[in-house]
């Protein structure tokens, strides 16, 4: 469904990705692991068109999207919950969700909103609240809910657990699995919490300073001694 080949991205003189290749099949949850600065966020931003690649290709459902502007890529069914959530703090919860459904008709948007409210009842309780005043966890739910509003076929999630209490992290991961199972949405998940990520993902890739160094089933990665010592805390 999502094919990344030999992707190279530079920030000025700094090369953040040195020919990254990875693929995600329809219906899968794939996790992208790596230390701070490994290039996980850069990979996602290059996929969704926020960051131009120097070379390499990204294709989505067999179509080359490497040079497309972000709004065209979204239109094809690729959602992105960016690092730092980037919710619209000046808009209300409902307005944020409306933006998520920007490309849908009014009726479809209303229907989709009901589904998102079912997934995240907290958002319904807070619907008229200005998003900037939500708690961090609620903002994360809003960021995911907003991306779901666009009915994506594939969702890129950048560190959904960042800055959230362990209990809520578990709840959000359950939601991620639920979204994948019941709605059939393919997921590429970037996470620092490798334990949790490998528990929900089918497969995983490990990035190190802009290169994919490992790529395997979750079970195999969990058993891998290198991964154990570097990312699973022993």
């Amino acid at each position, binding site marked *: 469904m999502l094919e990344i080949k030999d992707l190279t991205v530079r920030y000025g003189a700094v090369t953040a990705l040195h020919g990254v290749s990875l693929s995600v099949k329809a219906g899968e949850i794939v996790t992208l692991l790596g230390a701070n600065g490994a290039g996980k966020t850069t990979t996602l931003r290059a996929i969704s068109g*926020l960051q131009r690649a120097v070379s390499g290709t990204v294709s989505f459902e067999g179509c080359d999207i490497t040079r497309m502007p972000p*709004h065209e890529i979204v239109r094809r069914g690729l959602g992105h919950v*960016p690092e730092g959530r*980037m919710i619209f703090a000046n808009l209300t919860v409902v307005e944020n969700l409306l*933006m998520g459904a920007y490309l849908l008709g009014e009726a479809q948007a209303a229907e989709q909103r009901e589904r998102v409210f079912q997934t995240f009842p907290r958002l319904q309780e807070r619907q008229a609240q200005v998003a*900037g*005043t939500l*708690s961090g966890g609620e903002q994360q739910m809003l960021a995911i809910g907003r*991306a779901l509003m666009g009915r994506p076929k594939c969702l890129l999630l950048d560190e959904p657990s960042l800055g959230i209490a362990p209990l809520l992290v578990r709840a959000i991961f359950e939601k991620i699995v639920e979204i994948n199972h019941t709605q059939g949405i393919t997921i590429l998940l970037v996470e620092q919490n490798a334990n949790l990520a490998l528990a929900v993902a089918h497969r995983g890739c490990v990035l190190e300073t802009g290169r994919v160094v490992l790529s395997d089933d979750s079970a195999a990665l969990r058993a891998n001694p290198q991964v154990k010592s570097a990312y699973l805390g022993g």
Partner: protein
Amino acid sequence: MTEFAQQLLNGLALGSIYALIALGYTMVYGVLRFINFAHSDVLMLGAFAAFYLAAATPHMAAATPLLHAGMVVLGAALICAVLGALIERLAYRPLRDRPRITVLITAIGVSLLIEYTCQHPAVFGAATRSFPQLFPQHNLTLGGLTLSSNDLAVLGITALLLALLWFVVQKTKLGVAMRAVAFNPQAASLMGVDVGRIISVTFALGSALAAVAGIAYALRAPGIEPLMGVQPGIKAFIAAVLGGIGNLPGAVLGGLLLGLIETFAGGLKQLSNYRDAIAFALLIIILILRPAGLLGREQPEKV
């Protein structure tokens, strides 16, 4: 007392013109974070567009004056909407990822280009031309108060446009998208918003308001000429900063306030020569007390 009420009315009429112009500055600042100095020239172009439209339709002016006035105002607004969007496309969009100072200097360049091109004899020429009285002139007297029909028309049209703009920005999907782009263009693009299109629409809307303001200003001025936008442009820019740049209600408040201050200062014999100085001094004081402007505030954002 009637003197006071009279000045109040005059001040509001002038202030609402400033408000219409200030909205354009503040809207563009909202999405692109720079001051579009060419905005003051768009208001001049609006006045000239109206001038030529009116001159081209004398029969209609005689037969149905109100319809004619509406047609002229609407036509000028449309022409300026296109021009404003065009200026953005040609001059500012190629500089999208450049430092803001580059864009700011370009804006000054565009402004000078328009002004001096228009002063060329083959275009409008530098001479002042008298502007047609679009609206039928009636001076109503009400308890010693003289209400000029022009002022009333300006106030009415401004109120209508403000209500319309408020509706668009607050209640429509386009408006939500405009606010989303103003807050974070990248995040907006991830929602499927074509940010470039929203920016074009923003320029078009602001420029249409400027055209109406330009016509209203021309109706009060002795005539129109290519540099006529400079004075009201600077005042409206100040009004936008006064109200809190990027904030729409702030632009309206700032515009009305500046119009009132200027009118009241000008009404007092001893002060009339200093009315601009008073307006600017007040601006400085307010900005010292409230650096973000009257209604400007930092939005809290949790990350």
